[in-house]
C-alpha cells in the first residue's frame, strides 16, 4: 500500500479562479461586492434604490444570480445599467467560474462598481469566493433575530450586514438589538447598516459607504 499526500483545499479550483478575478478587478480599479441572503430579504430592492441614488455619480454593472428566470435582470435593466443574468438551473450558489463567464458581457474599463447579487440562499453561497472586495449579507426583520445564530457561516464570512425592512419592525416579532447582538457575537468585525428599501431609510448611509470605497 502506498499513500499520496495531497493537502489540497477541496474548493481550491474556485479559490484560484476567484484570485484571478480579484486581480482583474484590481487592474480595472473596480470596487466589487457580492450580496448574499435568503430569498426575499430585499437584495434586489436595495439594489434598485442604490442604483437610483448612485446613477450619474458612478458607472456600475450588475450580475444577477438566480435559480430560474431573468425577472431580477429585467428589474435592473429598467435603470439602464449593464446587467447579466446567470441562471443556475437548480444550482444553489454562484461560483467564480460562472462570474468569470458573465464578465465576458461586461466592459470592465467602463465601470467602477460591480454588484454581484447571489442566489437567495443563506447557506451555500458562504463558501464560494467570487473575487469580491466584500461579501454583504442582507437579513430582513421578517426573518427573525435568531438567524445569525442559526446560519453562522454566512455571517462569519461576510464583512457587512444590512438589516432590511426596518419599517416593518412594529409589526413583526424581531428585536433589532437582539439581531445586532447575535450577528456581532458570530462576527465581531461586521459593519452594520439598517435600511428599508420601501421607505428609503438608511439607503443614504449605505450609498455613502459605497462611494467611499470606489477606487480612484
Amino acid at each position, binding site marked *: 500500500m502506498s499513500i*499520496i499526500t*495531497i493537502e489540497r*483545499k477541496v474548493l481550491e479550483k474556485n479559490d484560484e479562479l476567484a484570485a484571478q478575478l480579484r486581480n482583474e478587478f484590481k487592474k480595472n480599479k473596480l470596487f466589487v461586492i457580492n450580496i448574499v441572503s435568503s430569498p426575499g430579504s430585499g437584495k434586489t430592492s436595495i439594489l434598485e434604490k442604490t442604483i437610483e441614488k448612485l446613477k450619474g455619480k458612478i458607472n456600475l454593472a450588475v450580475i444577477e444570480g438566480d435559480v430560474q428566470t431573468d425577472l431580477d435582470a429585467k428589474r435592473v435593466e429598467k435603470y439602464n445599467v449593464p446587467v447579466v443574468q446567470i441562471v443556475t438551473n437548480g444550482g444553489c450558489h454562484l461560483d467564480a467560474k460562472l462570474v468569470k463567464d458573465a464578465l465576458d458581457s461586461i466592459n470592465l474599463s467602463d465601470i467602477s462598481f460591480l454588484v454581484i447579487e447571489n442566489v437567495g440562499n443563506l447557506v*451555500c453561497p458562504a463558501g464560494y469566493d467570487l473575487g469580491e472586495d466584500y461579501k454583504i449579507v442582507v437579513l430582513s426583520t421578517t426573518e427573525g433575530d435568531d438567524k445569525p445564530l442559526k446560519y*453562522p457561516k454566512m455571517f462569519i464570512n461576510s464583512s457587512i450586514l444590512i438589516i432590511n425592512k426596518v419599517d416593518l419592525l412594529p409589526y413583526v416579532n424581531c428585536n433589532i438589538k437582539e439581531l445586532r447582538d447575535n450577528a*456581532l457575537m458570530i462576527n465581531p468585525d461586521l459593519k452594520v447598516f439598517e435600511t428599508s428599501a420601501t421607505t428609503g431609510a438608511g439607503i443614504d448611509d449605505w450609498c455613502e459607504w459605497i462611494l467611499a470605497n470606489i477606487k480612484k
Partner: protein
Amino acid sequence: MHELSVAQSIVEIIKENVPEQDYGKVNAVLLEVGEFSGIIADSLQFCFDAVKLETPFKKARMEIKKVPFVLYCNLCKVETTNSNGIRMCDKCGGFDNSIVSGTEMRVTEVELD
C-alpha cells in the same frame, strides 16, 4: 450545503494527484472537514459513494476526519472554542479572537493498493 458538487471536486483532485495508470488502485481518500465548514460529513460520504461509480475510483472509500472549531483568544492568549460556532472565548466571554480551525475542507491523502 452542496455536497454533490463538493464530491465531484474531490474526484477531480484525486485525478490530478494520482498517476493515471494507478487510478484503479485508489482504495481511500482522506479528508479533513471542519465542524463549521458547512459540509455534512454523512451527506458528503453518501454523495461520494454515488459519484464514484461513474469514475475509475469505484472501490475508493472516503475517510473524514472532523476538525473542531478552535479560536485563539487575544485577551487570554490561549486557544479556546465555542460549540455554537460563536466567536466568543469560552474562558473570558470576550470577542477579540481569531479563528484557528474548524472552517476548512481539505483532501489530505489518497491511499493506493
